[in-house]
């Protein structure tokens, strides 16, 4: 029997749409509810970060890295600081390293809260989102106390951190770790294993191992596909080799390996691991020492050359590539950022064929993009 053929309908999702996670535009060609093709259009949040760097000195670039992945500003600061430190050969004091680990892991939790909270929101669960957001609020209070800002911290500087912390602050962080554990269990009960949620997220947007590698997936997205790769474990930078933590990977326990539920669950489990790391760091830190010790007086010693450093941000592997010409009052000759969300977004076109419109939202939510980082 001949198939009944209908016209495709072109739908414009975004740039203003509740669940495009920022200003992303998707051009959907649908056959009724079934998506025939989905093409992302980027650039609505492009702010010329890379070009802008070329006219700023290294100290001034740090607040701009905040604005790339605005949900995980600490990790961005750190990625950039790592690159410049490697270039200049700076040894960071141990206290600063501990502080960096604590704030970055706190920020990782905050970022993952947004990721799984909005993922639930995309599927229609409002309450888990807000319950998780309360915890994010607590993290922001802590980070504000440490750095002075709630979202865009400018805290991790090249060679150190911007501000010292007090022992009361460390106690508060400890308190937060305790209060967070029951909440994540509650989210598990309320959302993760909910039958409706599982049926919406499992077996949707499956990214097999080889496809994930082909498209440059990193971070929780890659681990959701069952590949155990975490820069903190496999290529430890800073003092991550001192900590004992697991790398949660997707197992396809509710559906197929590499589906949206696996990616979601990876994030949930990663927050638990982050709490573990923070607790260990709180034990290891000593408050003696000068945080400004290794902060370079100026960047005149910046050598000529280039450097590429990668680090694990909540969205995956962020690479910073800097070409320097050295000299006095130097600025980068070229700065390039390898954005994990950008690579992850590219898979949308591949796996969106034949799914339903509702699934597009779920897939988009599960790869957890931040448009500030995609467009830069």
């Amino acid at each position: 029997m001949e198939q009944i053929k209908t016209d495709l309908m072109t739908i414009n999702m975004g740039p203003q749409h509740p669940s495009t996670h920022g200003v992303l535009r998707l051009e959907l060609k649908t056959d009724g509810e079934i998506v025939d093709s989905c093409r992302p259009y980027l650039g609505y949040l492009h702010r010329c970060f890379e070009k802008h760097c070329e006219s700023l000195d290294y100290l001034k670039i740090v607040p701009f890295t905040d604005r790339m992945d605005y949900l995980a500003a600490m990790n961005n600061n750190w990625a950039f600081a790592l690159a410049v430190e490697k270039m200049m050969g700076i040894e960071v004091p141990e206290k600063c390293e501990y502080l960096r680990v604590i704030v970055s892991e706190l920020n990782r939790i905050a970022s993952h809260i947004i990721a799984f909270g909005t993922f639930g929101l995309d599927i229609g669960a409002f309450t888990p989102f807000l319950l998780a957001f309360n915890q994010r609020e607590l993290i922001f209070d802590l980070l504000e106390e440490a750095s002075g800002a709630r979202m865009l911290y400018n805290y991790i500087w090249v060679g150190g951190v911007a501000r010292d912390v007090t022992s009361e602050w460390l106690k508060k962080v400890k308190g937060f770790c305790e209060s967070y554990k029951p909440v994540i269990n509650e989210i598990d009960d309320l959302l993760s294993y909910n039958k409706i949620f599982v049926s919406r997220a499992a077996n949707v947007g499956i990214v097999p191992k080889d496809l994930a590698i082909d498209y440059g997936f990193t971070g929780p997205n890659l681990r959701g596909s069952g590949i155990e790769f975490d820069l903190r474990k496999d290529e430890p930078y800073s003092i991550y080799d001192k900590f004992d933590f697991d790398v949660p990977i997707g197992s396809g326990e509710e559906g197929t390996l590499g589906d949206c539920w696996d990616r979601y669950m990876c994030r949930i489990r990663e927050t638990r691991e982050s709490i573990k790391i923070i607790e260990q760091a709180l034990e290891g830190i000593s408050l003696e020492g000068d945080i400004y010790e290794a902060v370079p007086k100026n960047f005149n010693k910046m050598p000529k050359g280039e450097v590429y450093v990668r680090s694990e941000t909540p969205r995956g592997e962020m690479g910073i590539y800097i070409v320097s010409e050295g000299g006095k009052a130097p600025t980068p000759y070229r700065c390039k950022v390898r954005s994990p969300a950008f690579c992850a977004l590219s898979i949308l076109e591949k796996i969106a064929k034949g799914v339903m419109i509702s699934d597009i939202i779920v897939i988009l939510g599960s790869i957890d993009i931040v448009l500030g980082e995609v467009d830069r």
Partner: protein
Amino acid sequence: MVIADFAFILVAAFVLICACVVVFHNKIIYSAFALLFCFFGVAGLYVFLNAEFLAGTQLLVYVGGISVLILFGILLTKNIEDLTSKEVSTQKIFGGLISVTFLGGLIYMVNSVDWKVSTPKPIENSPVEIGKLFMSDFLIPFEIAGVLLLVALIGAVVIGRDTDKDLEV
């Protein structure tokens, strides 16, 4: 009962106007909506005949079911993105001739038949009576209609089923 007459005229006029819109309107979607209102008006006419159950059935089946399905069909098949698309009749003269002939025949029939005025009181609990009739005098037609609908249903499923299973439910 002046009010009842007045209401009847209102409803009848509504049905007629809607019917005219169905036939004469250029936009097919207007015709479909007018058809829906036409069915709705007919349900009102049933109420005047003390056939509430039938009126309800008319609403449920024709308004809530068939009209909506027709609308559904139009929305899914027509070029719905274009609000200005129009359907123009190309055979106005021929069509008009046929309808005038048909109207003449109907008028002749209405006038020639000797209509009887119904004397018995309307049945109080019509659903019960209808149910009883279905299960006694009209059992065979009822069953045949049921089987026919079932056949149509299965046929529709067979035709409409997607042969390639690309969407797992």
